């Protein structure tokens, strides 16, 4: 079969040309999809925020300084963002670790320091086992009404789902972290307004 001989120049040329073509094609795909991806992520986040804080009407993301101090009080749990819901409270976006990796979720805390709701944005738990944290109807509502300024007491009432211990434990860790953030950072600010 007639094939290109492998001279150095040809080798370099072949690879570089392929790379160029590939980079151009990928940038194009990226440009086409990136708005949609951002939009999807924003929608998912907004949906979760609305469900975790049903009374809030608008959310504004809090600034970087706040996030830095929040991360300090959250310990090992990842904190993605904190949203200020006007007078209705705060939505804390944490990503504690479940069985299948980090589970980004929203913990809603109202201005009195009560947990208003917990919503999981995405999770990658084992279908049928770990996913019960979402499908089990009594699991997520149990966090409602927890006292965020004293989560370490409230957590004693926690009820894990059998067969999904690690996943339920992950959600618990997230709520506890959000509680600590409230206790040490958010409650210091004035009733939900941006400092």
């Amino acid at each position, binding site marked *: 079969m007639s094939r290109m001989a*492998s001279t*150095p*120049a040809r*080798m*370099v040329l*072949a*690879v*570089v040309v*392929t*790379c*160029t073509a*590939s*980079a*151009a094609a*990928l*940038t*194009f795909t*990226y*440009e086409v999809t990136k708005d949609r991806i951002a939009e999807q992520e924003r929608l998912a986040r907004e949906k979760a925020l609305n469900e975790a804080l049903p009374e809030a009407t608008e959310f504004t993301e809090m600034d970087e300084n706040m996030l830095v101090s929040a991360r300090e009080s959250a310990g090992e749990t990842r904190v993605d963002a904190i949203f200020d819901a006007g007078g209705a409270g705060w939505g804390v976006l944490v990503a504690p670790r479940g069985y299948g990796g980090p589970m980004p979720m929203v913990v809603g805390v109202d201005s009195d320091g009560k947990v208003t709701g917990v919503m999981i944005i995405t999770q990658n738990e084992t279908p049928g086992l770990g996913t019960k944290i979402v499908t089990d109807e009594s699991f997520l509502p149990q966090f409602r009404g927890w006292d965020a300024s004293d989560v370490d007491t409230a957590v004693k009432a926690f009820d894990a789902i059998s067969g999904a211990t690690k996943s339920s434990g992950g959600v618990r860790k997230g709520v506890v972290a959000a509680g600590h953030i409230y206790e040490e950072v958010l409650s210091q600010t004035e009733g939900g307004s941006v400092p």
Partner: protein
Amino acid sequence: MEFELVIKAIVALSAIGLVASAMLAAASRRFHVEVDPRVENVLSALPGANCGACGNPSCFGAAEAIVEEKIPITSCTAGGQTVADEVAGIMGVEPCAVAAIVSMRHCGGGRAASKAYDYSGLLSCIAVARLAGGDLTCPYGCFGYGDCARACPFSAITMDDRNLPVVDLEKCTGCEVCVAECPRGQAGLLAMAPAEGAVAVRCNSHDKAKARKAYCPMCCIACKKCEKVCPADAIHVIDLLAIVDYEKCTGCGQCVAVCPPECIDLAGRDAIESAVRLDGRGPKVDGFVPREVVAEESTEEAPAE
């Protein structure tokens, strides 16, 4: 569409591509090993199973050795004649015939051999051999737990109803894996012999005839009838055991007919015979020649040669 991003992407990926390919191009110069192009060609002709039968660690090693003329072009027993012809073509030499070498079992005892004790451990020859030297009273015989059959990379060995390994001459490539695997293989229980028209002595015991007879009814009794009948002077009783000289043996089968304990057999007949027994269909399989007929046919053919 951000034009800038496209440029950045192209620059980034091309830079990596450039570094990578330049590195490879430089390496192919700098680290160029003078490889005879024939090595690549021979390598692609070889089966690529890296079985090691030729004594080289891999087919690549074998290809190098063939090109450097350290080993003959017919070295690849697994590949056989077709590979040898192809290799001969690449090397530019006359193709020559590969004598197909196959594994041959030198024991006919099986279930008939007497046992020293009842063994009920792991069903493996190596395991039984380590337990007081094995469960056979005969120190040369086949244990029949099939290590060779499991080890054979070409699935050429099956265990038959006599608890003996039967070698399929079509599939056997002579790679000697079974010899290495068998605890008594090196001692002479399994040995390599040419496949074409060979007879096999199904015994490798050098013990005194009386002791031997006590172990197993199938053993060679050193009666020398085969030696007398052989027209090619190819079989001799040496040290109380009939040994075939494969340089001379024509596979006429006259010794097979006269052997009193039926200890000598045609190499290929064994497989057919046990297939017949296992199927229970009687001697109607293609190529099966009953023992009596072997003698008659061969006496007819022998003068013609």
